[in-house]
């Protein structure tokens, strides 16, 4: 938008505000990304009595629930760089990949790492002294170089990273062809990752937990103190421990998992690394409340934030169901002084591990937006979607991405869910205050955020079959602004592989903003 037009628009806008009218200034080629608020504005509660028109659903933005967001993002693994998996990203494809990441303003990722990537054999016989010069230690392995490449991308973009130590990779084959198998995995054969071994080849006791803890320390020390990455904000170990922590007999013993977590903490405390990066866990996928309480209670002195893998719902799930599930988890975590987040998520419509039947549907796109709204209303502070894009995970194509595979057949086409998820990542921000919003209409849900710069963003979903007229009421002085409206509905879904741009503007004025939501739609209103 050129300066001349901007000047005219500014004039009209000023006049409009002065006279109490809403003048839309949305659209155009770049105005949707123009921050309207550039410095943090003091927020006070106004003495107003908004009048909600007849037939409008009031959605009131009251007080914050006291939680701040800790990122909305996706799983991104270094597989994208593994040509051995037939993932060929040429320069042009990588640029497009980065352009999408930039466009959606991805806030956070989780990425996997294994001790075998850098400690390819045991460094020495002692878990107390890490021998970095050991011939078994290689922080320049191909696997680590690929990790650095991903972390460099995150560092440049201030994308927060959950470095997830998935476990002992029994099936590890190094990309240089020199290493096969894991020195640290136990003898259980029916899972690709196992808990650390607790006995050696001769059946003698083996300090596997201590060795694993040492490996975690070694990686964090290298990444934080040598490579100087600041994008690492969380690390986790053995996510989904109810399935990823099999002992030699295949049994996942939660008490053993707790023991390992505590040993890892002790190691990091002893090495002065504790507190440099937050430990998250357990990322369980059992989705059983009682078992979850057992996790958080036993990890209360270890994990500083709690997480879950959630594949529990689908587009037919109600807002109330999703809220209740999240609320119970949040309360369980709150009881031990932790926040709750979702370290990976999707729907429960699995065909197989890499495919879900609703993956290409518009309903899924709306469903994912509803999960964010309902979980956040319940106090959830961070959510990552599994997975950013379709990619070969070695033996199978992971087809749960926000966009499809590169290449001629699928051409990296964005799925409907890209357009809703990217609105969430783009118009919220890490560290935003969460303002839950209650709705008396079961089809409509909304959550509000006050961003660190004082701007406001509202996420609103209407899963009903008819349009809904809503009145967003807010007495917050800083919310009385002209805002951009970004809307996704079935008939307006773009196909340009870029985030949705503003369709119009709306103004919170006199404590009220009225707007119409299309049926089965997702709307973001923001002055970010």
């Amino acid at each position, binding site marked *: 938008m050129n300066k001349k037009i901007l000047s005219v628009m500014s004039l009209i806008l000023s006049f409009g505000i002065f*006279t*109490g009218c*809403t003048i*839309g200034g949305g*659209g*155009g080629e770049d105005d949707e990304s123009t921050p309207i608020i550039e410095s943090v504005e003091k927020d006070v509660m106004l003495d107003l009595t908004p009048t909600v028109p007849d037939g409008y659903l009031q959605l009131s933005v009251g007080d914050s629930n006291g939680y701040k967001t800790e990122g909305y993002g996706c*799983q991104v693994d270094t597989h994208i760089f593994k*040509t*051995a998996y*037939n*993932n*060929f990203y040429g320069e042009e494809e990588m640029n497009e990949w980065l352009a999408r990441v930039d466009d959606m303003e991805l806030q956070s990722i989780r990425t996997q790492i294994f001790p075998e990537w850098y400690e390819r054999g045991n460094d020495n016989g002692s878990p107390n002294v890490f021998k970095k010069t050991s011939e078994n230690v290689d922080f320049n392995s191909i696997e680590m170089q690929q990790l650095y490449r991903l972390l460099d991308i995150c560092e440049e973009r201030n994308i927060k990273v959950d470095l997830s130590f*998935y476990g002992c990779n029994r099936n590890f*084959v190094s990309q240089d*062809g020199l290493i*096969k198998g894991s020195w640290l995995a136990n003898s259980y*054969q*029916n*899972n*690709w990752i196992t808990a650390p071994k607790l006995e050696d080849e001769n059946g003698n006791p083996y300090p596997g937990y201590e060795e694993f803890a040492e490996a975690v320390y070694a990686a964090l020390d290298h990444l934080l103190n040598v490579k100087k990455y600041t994008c690492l904000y969380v690390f986790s170990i053995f*996510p*989904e421990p*109810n399935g*990823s922590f099999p002992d030699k007999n*295949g049994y996942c013993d939660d008490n053993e998992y707790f023991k390992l977590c505590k040993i890892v903490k002790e190691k990091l405390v002893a090495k002065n690394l504790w507190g440099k990066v937050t430990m998250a866990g357990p990322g369980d*996928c059992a989705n059983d409340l009682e078992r979850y309480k057992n996790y958080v209670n036993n990890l209360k002195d270890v994990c500083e934030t709690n997480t879950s*893998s959630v594949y529990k719902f689908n587009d037919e799930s109600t807002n109330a169901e999703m809220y209740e599930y999240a609320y119970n988890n949040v309360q369980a975590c709150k009881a031990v002084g932790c926040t709750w987040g979702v370290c990976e998520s999707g729907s429960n419509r*699995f065909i*197989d*591990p890499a495919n879900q039947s609703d993956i290409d549907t*518009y309903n899924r796109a709306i469903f994912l937006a509803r999960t964010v709204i309902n979980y956040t209303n319940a106090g959830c502070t961070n959510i990552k979607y599994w997975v950013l894009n379709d990619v*070969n*995970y*070695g*033996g*199978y*194509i992971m087809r749960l991405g926000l966009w499809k595979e590169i290449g001629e057949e699928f051409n990296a086409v964005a799925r409907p869910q890209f357009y809703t998820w990217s609105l969430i990542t783009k118009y919220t921000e890490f560290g935003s205050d969460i303002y839950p919003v209650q709705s008396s209409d079961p089809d409509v849900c909304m959550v509000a955020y006050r961003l660190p710069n004082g701007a406001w963003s509202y996420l609103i979903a209407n899963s009903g*079959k*008819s*349009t809904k007229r809503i009145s967003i009421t807010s007495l917050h002085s800083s919310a009385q602004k002209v805002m951009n*409206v970004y*809307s996704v509905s*079935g*008939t*307006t*879904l*773009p196909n*340009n592989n870029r985030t949705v*741009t503003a*369709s*119009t*503007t*709306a103004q919170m*004025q*006199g404590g*009220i903003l*009225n707007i119409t939501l*299309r*049926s*089965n739609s997702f709307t973001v209103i923001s002055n970010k």
Partner: protein
Amino acid sequence: MKKILSLVTVFALLFGLTLSVFRPVNTVRADEYTVECSDEENLAINKHNWFFPTLNSAQFTVDETSGMKFDNFIKDQQCVTYFRGGNFSEFKLSLLVNANLNIPEKGAQWKYSEAYITFLIDRAPEDALAEDGKPWYANKVYGSFCFGLTSGGLPISRFMYYNAFASNCQTSGQFYQPSGYTDVNVVDGKDHWIEIEIKNYNNDGVTGKKWIAYIDGVKVAEFDRDDDYYYDSDTAREYEVKYSELSGGIGIYTNSDWPGGYAPSRMNNFLEVKKAKLISYDDNPEGEVVGQCAAPVFKITANEYQVAPSYDAGDPVEIQLSDLFVYEGTDEVTYEVTCNGEPIGEIINGFWAWIPTTEGSYDIDFTATVSEDNLAKNYLTIRVNGSVEPESSTNTESNAESVAEGCGGSIATTFFPIALLAGVVLIIKRRNNE
């Protein structure tokens, strides 16, 4: 996700790595043997006989002239299919194959390229997927016959057995070769008939199943599986297995450790199955040829759909057409939406979109057509409250701007495409019975 992934993430190496010691090898000439297999009997030239894989980039194709082809299977990416025609207890499967299998000279750890016929797969036909043809996918496979080039590029022609009774086909698969048999090389540029025959036996009261494999009519492997108790070391328990009572599906997969990065043409590593004939002995001791599978027919049907109680004039009505109909096929579906026989609204992104402007009750007819004899209708009555003047709109695309007008309010809404609106104005007719 990791837990779920672990169900399928296993190393094909476990199945590809077998014997690296030198073994004597037989070569059988293909032109000395043939199996009568008419086009009507040839299961290899009908795509409806086979499930197609979905999980990776290996390529499985079925050509109605040349038959089945397994291509671009590389390390960790097997090419697999599964016969749709049912489960079998006693049968003989004859395949005419061109095993154009190649091993990489560089970059591969073990250098193998193999094909497997899997059988006695304990999966209900209606639940089966192509991937069920791989033992470790669902752990339902009791046996396989392996041919091609195993570790080190050595020929192989052996049976392999799995502990599917313990839901464990990952590490318990074992090659079996009794004395007196040697591995046969079928990777010689010639077509070969590869046959497996699975039949029950009763030897003085000892019952079970005998597996026999032939290459070009010569017996190359056999294996007896008695009805007995079998121990599975992973689950650490014993299972009673009555092989003679087992019945299951049939799959084929190919497996190599070519590293990624090579074009299929460069690898020149593929398996062609030009003919496939299956004889079942389940209902007739003399055997009956198993016929072709019919093309699956997916009828489109109307789906019960509850509209909103009413809509306000001027508000967009958007209904996802896939919500109105149920169709599991892959053929294109076309839709027609009418009111009193006249087209109404517009179809955008699979949604029917309409902006009513006049109060009333509208009976909308939706017709979804797959083909002339496969269509369905759905009928919705949409009640519209109030009336509005048709508005002009500046919004023609989802991301275009629109400008709310007027004073005294703070409403800014989005608008439907002007073309849609214009169309609506032209075609809407209120029904007489509203």
